[in-house]
């Protein structure tokens, strides 16, 4: 493979991320990216778009013989602080975006992981601990630009906060895992950083914690709320490590947060047992909770991360069902369950049982009218998992092929 104008040489670190035997094409601009994609189509080579290679296990396919990196698309191109919008190239590291927005007292109201790029984050359709309060990622995406495998560029949406012109391809592509097109730019809605955050948490027996969780979930308050089991509870700032816990976080203006904490205490059966942490500790807990749901830094580690999604009312039953199913197979499940959204992250650190765990979790999902996906499993396990056809699969594929007729990206 020869390097053309507009392509840079992938750095040693980049190359190492994808494996020394995988060619990495690193275009500097849209024209070079388009040329790379046309090349792949002409040669019949399947390709995988990537940013910093932070989440290869969630990319599809993992066995693609060529990587196209958008790491050079790394500019924040249109931040309008007064309008609370930002336009970001797809290769901008999430940490860079977070720091830049914080300088203006703003944030993307979702919890950005420490690693990865904005393009990768959108392509993964990442979920956020604060999703129950601020909505899913798709609701924050105002527009995208990208390149199809034909080399043609496209855009959808725009930079304004309300826009219904054209099909909402920018929302449709959230979670598409790079299997339709290569995103080059994402426009996002912003919020003001909260004035304050307060975290409260309880440890104790599972049944008491479940009761406390349900009381908070139905209190009419607006908590970020998690029922934590195993290593998920080690994210809490009391340094007591794994266990069983319920954690609730309030954010916003000081008066409202203080009032909500007071109300939360009034609905809890054992308010005296609540430990409180404020601001920095609360923010750090969110970061650790995000990391808990992220793939391990070393994708070959013996760790599986699964995400189960059920109707909110089913959360605790499904979470217990998932833990029981895994433990019945001699695995150890670590669980963070969000009863406001029904999103349950399950982490298992035992490769031998991961394939069986996914099969068991699929049964749990079916029982609770939900869906489960493998966020990260070691490559050896991934190859054997297979895919489950979901509702609308044929229709989705029909639409996907309009973007990528030769299935170079899938």
């Amino acid at each position: 493979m020869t390097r053309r104008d507009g392509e840079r040489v992938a750095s040693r670190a980049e190359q190492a991320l994808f494996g020394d035997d995988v060619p990495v094409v690193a275009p500097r601009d849209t024209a070079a990216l388009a040329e790379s994609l046309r090349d792949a189509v002409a040669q019949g080579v399947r390709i995988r778009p990537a940013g910093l290679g932070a989440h290869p296990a969630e990319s599809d396919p993992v066995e693609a013989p060529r990587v196209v990196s958008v790491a050079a698309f790394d500019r924040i191109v249109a931040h309008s602080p007064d309008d609370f919008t930002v336009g970001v190239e797809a290769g901008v590291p999430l940490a860079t975006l977070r720091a830049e927005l914080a300088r203006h007292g703003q944030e993307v109201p979702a919890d950005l992981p420490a690693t990865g790029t904005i393009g990768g984050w959108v392509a993964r359709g990442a979920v956020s601990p604060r999703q129950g309060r601020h909505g899913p990622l798709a609701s924050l995406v105002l527009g995208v630009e990208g390149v199809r495998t034909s080399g043609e560029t496209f855009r959808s949406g725009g930079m304004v906060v309300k826009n219904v012109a054209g099909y909402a391809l920018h929302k449709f592509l959230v979670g598409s895992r790079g299997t339709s097109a290569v995103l080059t730019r994402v426009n996002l809605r912003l919020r003001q950083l909260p004035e304050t955050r307060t975290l409260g948490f309880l440890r104790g027996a599972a049944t008491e914690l479940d009761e406390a969780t349900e009381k908070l979930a139905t209190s009419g308050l607006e908590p970020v709320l998690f029922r934590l089991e195993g290593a998920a509870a080690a994210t809490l700032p009391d340094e007591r490590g794994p266990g069983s816990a319920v954690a609730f976080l309030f954010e916003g203006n000081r008066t409202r947060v203080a009032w909500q904490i007071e109300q939360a205490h009034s609905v809890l059966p054992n308010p005296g047992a609540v430990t409180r942490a404020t601001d920095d500790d609360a923010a750090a807990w969110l970061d650790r909770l995000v990391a808990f749901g992220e793939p391990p830094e070393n994708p070959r580690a013996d760790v599986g991360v699964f995400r189960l999604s059920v109707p909110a009312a089913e959360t605790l039953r499904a979470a217990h069902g998932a833990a029981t199913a895994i433990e019945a197979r001699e695995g150890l499940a670590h669980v963070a369950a969000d009863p406001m959204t029904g999103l349950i992250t399950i982490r298992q650190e035992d490769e031998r049982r991961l394939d069986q765990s996914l099969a068991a979790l699929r049964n749990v999902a079916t029982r609770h009218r939900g869906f489960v996906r493998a966020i990260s499993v070691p490559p050896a396990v991934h190859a054997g998992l297979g895919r489950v056809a979901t509702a609308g699969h044929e229709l989705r594929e029909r639409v996907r092929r309009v973007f990528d007729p030769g299935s170079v990206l899938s």
Partner: protein
Amino acid sequence: MSLPDPFRELARRFPADRFLTDRTELFVYECDGLPVHRQPPAAVVLCETRDEVVACVKWCAANEVPFVPRGAGTGLSGGATPVRGCLLLDLNRMRAIRKIDARSRYAVVEPGLINVRLTEAAKPHGLMYAPDPSSQTACTLGGNIAENSGGPHCLKYGVTIDHVLGLEVVLPDGEVVRLGGPIADHPDHDLVQLFVGAEGTFGVVTEITLRLTPDPPEVRTFLAIFDSMAKACRTVTEITRSGIVPVALEILDRRTIEAVEASVNRAGYPTNAAAVLLVELDGFAAGMDEEERAIVEMARANEPIELRSARDPAERVALWKGRKGAFGAMGRVDTDLYVLDGVVPRTALEETLEKVYEIADRYRVKVSNVFHAGDGNLHPNISYDGRDADVTARVLAAGEEMLRACVAAGGSISGEHGIGLEKRDFMPLLFGEGDLALMTGIRDAIDPEGIANPGKGFPDRRAKRRKVRA
């Protein structure tokens, strides 16, 4: 009216009072809330079940007859305007609320349910359905899905697409698919997000799963009345910049105020008022005093003529009276009303409005503005006499130029009304040929025969090739 033979075969499957072919009965279906375009359908079916929709769509596919789904017909972009020779599927009778799950905060409804009925049903559970188009007492949720409707309170809660969790859709070949559901994650590309706002070009929605939102325990409403639009716009910009997110930030301009004051919805605005800014906060009472004080200070800094506030529901209704009655009051100005819908960045409100007034003067048309200032969603309303062809031509030309001004400011040609017939030829203002080819390619992949609400949303090159029966 004599029906083509295939229609007679379909008509036999329905009671006569649910299969309409009489010219006088079809008359009410010839346009939606955009009367500029009119076309009677060949026939109308009043559908009552999903299976009836499936039967109709399969019949349309087999006979190459276009179909147009329709709810209450309150849309403002011609999305439900019939095309020549079409079968119109009236979905108003499919209005059941199938489920409300208060704990999981979602509802499952049929597409003909009137928007406000869902909030009424959710209220005893402490919940509401947030998107509230101005026509919410008449418009249907299926229509809201088709047009991705907004409303005054979408500033805080988001528009329709942010509240749709799942859909059951009858595709253009009659196949039924279920997309999404009451869960927060989806397995792949999110087809629900693609179908919302597709204006019926992908088929007919027959069941909808919607997110419900906690009914706010406290609501505060206040008005700031200014002697200039610039002062009102500056106040909006400052509120936006502060990071406080009210649930509504609405502006009425001088001509609207005059129309309101001359109508039965008279709100008692001062005679020298040039702009009324309505602000509403909702949520927990705790912390709201600080936000209200901050907003009032921002308004005061821009020298309002008057500030009014409401502390109870009755006072709130009084403050909303002028805003809610604005469109009705326009009826006094002239015989017809062309309601435009453009969006600009919030920071470009003032300069874009100046352009709107300048364009109106240049084309000698009467424009008034009632708009969702908080999200930059402008609604220049042009009152005119539609019987005068010259005036109508000037109105349409002025409207186009106003939308061009929105795009030039970094905005869009629609914030909540959809593209429909009205703005399909303006799509190239926003999108390149490749973008449009991609979107119409998706439409063709889902509807290869081109029978699902054809001609809507995009410059319709395909219409010339399509076989249409009279």
